[in-house]
């Protein structure tokens, strides 16, 4: 008994001593001065944090592949300010703690000049406060939740945000397709889908339409017959499916199988070659919003698609295009800033104006979100075709 009590006492003493000595230093992170060093020579490090394993692995991998292509092309052209780029990718495993670890390590150990990431808004929300606190600019390629850039002035994104995209498609459904009743089928595991569904609903109802039914699924589900059957009996004239391509393809097939003939509507999460291999003919007559139309793509977009295919043997997805643009926007900002100093880089990113990116012209607004045009595509004969363009 003696021994244990003494031991406890000693350890307690240790706590008290360390506590009182260190207490005033454990506030405020205390490491603004250390780490995140921006070297003036040598390679420019872009730190990429993405889900490379886990159930959302294909998103991270798509983004990473395109980002690496961008770095390769930048270096082939001689780099920027005479310095070459290097991209370091850390796996977040789709996990919140890992995302924070990854960003911390990218700043502390890898000395990243800028951070690229993440695809998932909830993971970006883990990494952004760290980047903001350590004053390292972060550019998210595809997080669409408005909150991400609200974290601070060092956080940017290159994709449009949910409220905008949802509104565009809602008005398209109401005014162009003249629809009165639409059902919503959203992915409750994905904040992208939830945000887009809410934005659509608000705008559609505000424009005089009604929501016939609201159903949900979880990313990774394979069986949608229950939801589609329920929507079938609701009399909806279209279904808003703002999810990702894998499930959307299966949903389209399920709908066709169950005799539901109304068009599906969606967002840029549809953009992937797998959408067509999975969905097939069931997708004909559906519409979705995206960054560029394959049949009307700018020369820049076409070149990107061709280069990606040449390097990886597969076509890029919309996420990939955004990853590519994320890197390019960072490189452009470095060029304009003339240095990699954090404050200068931040300012240059904030003043990005009419930058010609693969996914459209990017101009950063005051909230550090890009003002970009949305392209609406129609699927016909197994291919996506240009339908209309909507400017912000």
């Amino acid at each position, binding site marked *: 008994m003696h021994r244990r009590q003494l031991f406890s006492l000693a350890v307690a003493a240790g706590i008290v001593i360390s506590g009182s000595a260190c207490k005033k230093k454990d506030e405020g992170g205390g490491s603004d001065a250390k780490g995140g060093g921006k070297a003036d020579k040598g390679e420019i490090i872009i730190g990429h944090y993405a889900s490379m*394993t*886990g*159930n959302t*692995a*294909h998103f991270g*991998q798509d983004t990473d592949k395109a980002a690496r292509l961008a770095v390769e092309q930048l270096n082939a052209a001689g780099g920027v300010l005479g310095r070459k780029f290097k991209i370091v990718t850390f796996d977040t495993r789709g996990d919140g703690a890992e995302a924070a670890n990854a960003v911390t390590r990218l700043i502390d150990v890898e000395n990243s000049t800028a951070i690229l990431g993440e695809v998932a808004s909830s993971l970006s929300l883990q990494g952004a406060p760290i980047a903001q606190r350590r004053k390292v600019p972060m550019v998210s390629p595809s997080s669409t939740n408005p909150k991400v850039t609200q974290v601070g002035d060092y956080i940017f994104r290159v994709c449009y945000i949910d409220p905008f995209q949802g509104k565009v498609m809602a008005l398209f459904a109401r005014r162009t397709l003249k629809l009165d009743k639409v059902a919503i089928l959203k992915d*409750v595991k994905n904040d992208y889908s939830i945000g887009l569904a809410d934005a659509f609903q608000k705008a559609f109802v505000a424009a005089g339409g009604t929501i016939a039914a609201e*159903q*949900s*699924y*979880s990313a*990774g*589900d*394979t*069986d949608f*017959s*229950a*939801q589609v*059957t*329920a929507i*079938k*009996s609701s009399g909806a004239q279209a279904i808003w499916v703002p999810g990702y391509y*894998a499930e959307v*393809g*299966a949903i389209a*097939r*399920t709908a066709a*199988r*169950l*005799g539901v003939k109304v068009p599906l509507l969606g967002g840029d999460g549809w953009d992937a070659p*797998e959408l067509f*291999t*999975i969905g*097939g003919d069931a997708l004909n007559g559906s519409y979705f919003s995206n960054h560029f139309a394959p049949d009307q793509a700018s020369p820049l977009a076409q070149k990107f698609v061709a280069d990606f295919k040449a390097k990886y043997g597969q076509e890029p997805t919309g996420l990939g295009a955004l990853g590519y643009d994320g890197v390019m926007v960072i490189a452009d900002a470095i060029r304009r800033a003339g240095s990699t100093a954090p404050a200068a880089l931040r300012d240059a990113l904030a003043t990005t104006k009419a930058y010609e990116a693969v996914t459209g012209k990017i101009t950063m607004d005051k909230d550090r979100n890009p003002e970009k045009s949305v392209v609406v595509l129609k699927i016909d004969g197994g291919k996506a075709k240009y339908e209309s363009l909507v400017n912000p």
Partner: protein
Amino acid sequence: MSTLLQQILNGLSLGSIYALIALGYTMVYGILKLINFAHGEVFMIGAYAGYFAALGLGVERYTDAGFPLYLAILVLVFAMAVAALLGASIEFLAYRPVRSAPRLTPLITAIGVSLFLQNAAMLAFTPNPRPYPAILKEVRFELGGVIVTNVKLTIFVVAIALMVGLNAFIQRTWTGKAMRAVSTNIDAARLMGIDTDRIIRATFAVGSALAAAGGILFGLDQITINPLMGVLTGLKAFVAAVLGGIGNIRGAVLGGLLIGLAEQMTAGYLSPDYRDAITFVILIIILILRPQGLLGVVRPEKV
């Protein structure tokens, strides 16, 4: 009304697949008192084996004419063989060495094998969901407001055929009878001269083959497959086995159908968000109220 019938039909077809998988769980548990956590992954590998076999046999060339029946059967047999081999290997490599260890050790080993297969599959097959090849060309017809596809009918036919086959195997063949003996009392069986190791391995093989069949049917019905498809489905099939009475073959079938129905009804009438939770709720209720399962018998524990 037609909606209700549609939901019931969908529930039963899903349930048939669960039943096929549950059979594997129940047979292994009956013999070894071990929950084979890796069984869900065998189901997944079976589905992928079918996928590659179909592609290898050029299914894509047949989109209009429809894949010939004899080739479809070949795909099924191939997948079942691959799974049987995998199941037996897992037993031999990972479970046999720890058979005499305290109960926890094989449980953890099983979890380890399951995790290993999931992640190895993710590496080998990439995590992207893949559309399942049209081994069966889909034909729809409507029956009083209810849409029935030939895929659903095939699921019923194949599942019933396999279950009848299994029953005959267990009742009539020598190996089947040996399996029943081993599951009743393994020591007595050994004393009667039965090579228990071989029988155990055979049990794993048969259960795995059934799971593979379930995997192919699942792919056809659910349109896509992905490396993590075995996780939740495997768990639900296990609950089905428990619901019916673990160790009881008819129980596994009954349990599978019930779980499939429960899941579909919950998704359709309550909320799709709870479709997975309902399985666990059922598990908890059955274990508290009637732990031996619906068709199981209470075995008093000798002290």
